[in-house]
């Protein structure tokens, strides 16, 4: 699956509707060290819709067009204006895979995972489940998606993830551009991240600037 149109991503960890003022509908999202309010139902609804629809790994790429269509279907008719505000505050980002802008974005964001892994099964060894332990998996993804979900959050930025995958690919599949070119890997990551986000098992956050003790790269 590939795309040459800009993809839409929500950014941030949802921290709920905080009722500091009775009767005021105010949702809060954390991005990095800041929290951002989503004022009113429409802003929250559009940010939630920016996650996409959980339709498995075959879900269509989530774009401004599909988002605005979903917003209209749920009764929000001024989606363009609300989206412009969310884009201006980086609560939603829009980027075309394979472009220099996608690399710039990958250097400023990081993937964080939610929930737990289910692994695979002898009957379906190529599908890896993710979800709430003890319940049914929210989604089953191929090994690439599982690796991205399971250790991508260990990296300070999404671009670091792509570089590590490219180094690993250079050792195992040196002639395969899809596995050795960080930009090509980023395109695969962005499409898979849409699947992970739509199923509620990951979110995007601000890239880490300064972390604790460095440790050697893992073998992927």
């Amino acid at each position, binding site marked *: 699956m590939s795309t040459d149109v800009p993809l839409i991503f929500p950014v941030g960890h*949802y921290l709920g*509707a*905080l009722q500091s003022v009775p009767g005021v509908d105010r949702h809060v999202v954390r991005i990095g060290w800041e929290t951002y309010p989503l004022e009113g139902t429409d802003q929250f609804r559009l940010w939630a819709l920016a996650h996409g629809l959980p339709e498995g790994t075959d879900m269509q790429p989530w774009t401004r067009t599909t988002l605005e269509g979903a917003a209209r279907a749920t009764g929000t008719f001024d989606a363009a204006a609300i989206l412009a505000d969310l884009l201006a505050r980086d609560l939603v980002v829009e980027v075309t895979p394979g472009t220099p802008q996608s690399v710039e974005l990958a250097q400023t964001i990081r993937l964080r995972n939610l929930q*737990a892994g289910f*692994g695979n099964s002898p009957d379906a060894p190529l599908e890896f489940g993710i979800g709430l332990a003890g319940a049914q998996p929210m989604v089953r993804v191929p090994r690439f998606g599982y690796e991205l979900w399971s250790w991508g959050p260990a990296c300070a930025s999404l671009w670091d993830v792509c570089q590590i995958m490219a180094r690993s690919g250079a050792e195992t599949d040196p002639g395969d551009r899809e596995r050795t070119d960080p930009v090509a890997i980023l395109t695969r990551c962005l499409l898979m991240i849409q699947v992970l986000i739509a199923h*509620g098992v990951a979110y995007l956050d601000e890239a880490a600037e300064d972390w604790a003790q460095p440790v*050697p*790269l*893992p073998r992927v």
Partner: protein
Amino acid sequence: MQLPATSPVQTLFRRYDCCVVGDETTAEPLIFPVGHYLGRQFRLQPSGSRGDLGVVEDVCRVRRGANFHSLTGEQAAVWTAACGSAKALEDAIPWSRQSMLAATSSQVGEIVEDLIGRQLLVEVSPGTPSARDFASTHRVVPSMLGLGNSADEPDIFHIGFLNSPVVAVSHAIYDLWSWSTMDGCLWDACENAYQAAQQAGIAAPADDPNQLLTGFLGALHALLYAGAASIDIDFRLDLN
């Protein structure tokens, strides 16, 4: 041994009014699992003359820092059991090695020792220097969404999924949980939470960061058991 059913879905909805209670210490150290559970994973290869696929590897994996650890089913069951139990949470029983062994099987003592040796389990005594050491080298990672509070119960904060709260906690616990992923370690999270409360001019949730840590450790099994958080080590990858 089968993996225990620790699903909070089966026990929705539980409220653990995890308060920062102060200087309480437990008689026995609390036991915690370290790492993020990645599930049971099979690797298959063609085998036999017909080339049928056969299982050549069947392990449970946990990511701890930058490393992936392979556990047997029994080891994974013990690791998961360290998250706590519904009964212990309901009865406010501190989850220690002894309470875990009593609830599972005394036969798993060697596995506990092995997992402690691999730093996949850790024992911590709240209110002691070991707690500070633990908090300075580990971080708490949220694995669900924050759902906030309500006008009816402004002091109770929910964690879970949209329209599906799984666990309820006090503001002090919610605040630490919300920001813990940004801090390098749990101790930094406690210090920052304490300072932020002071700077904001609101009533500090504890007398000092140590007391905050003590209270949070007492609430941590509720978060782990619900699947609302995991524990990782303080680390970062070095690309150079």
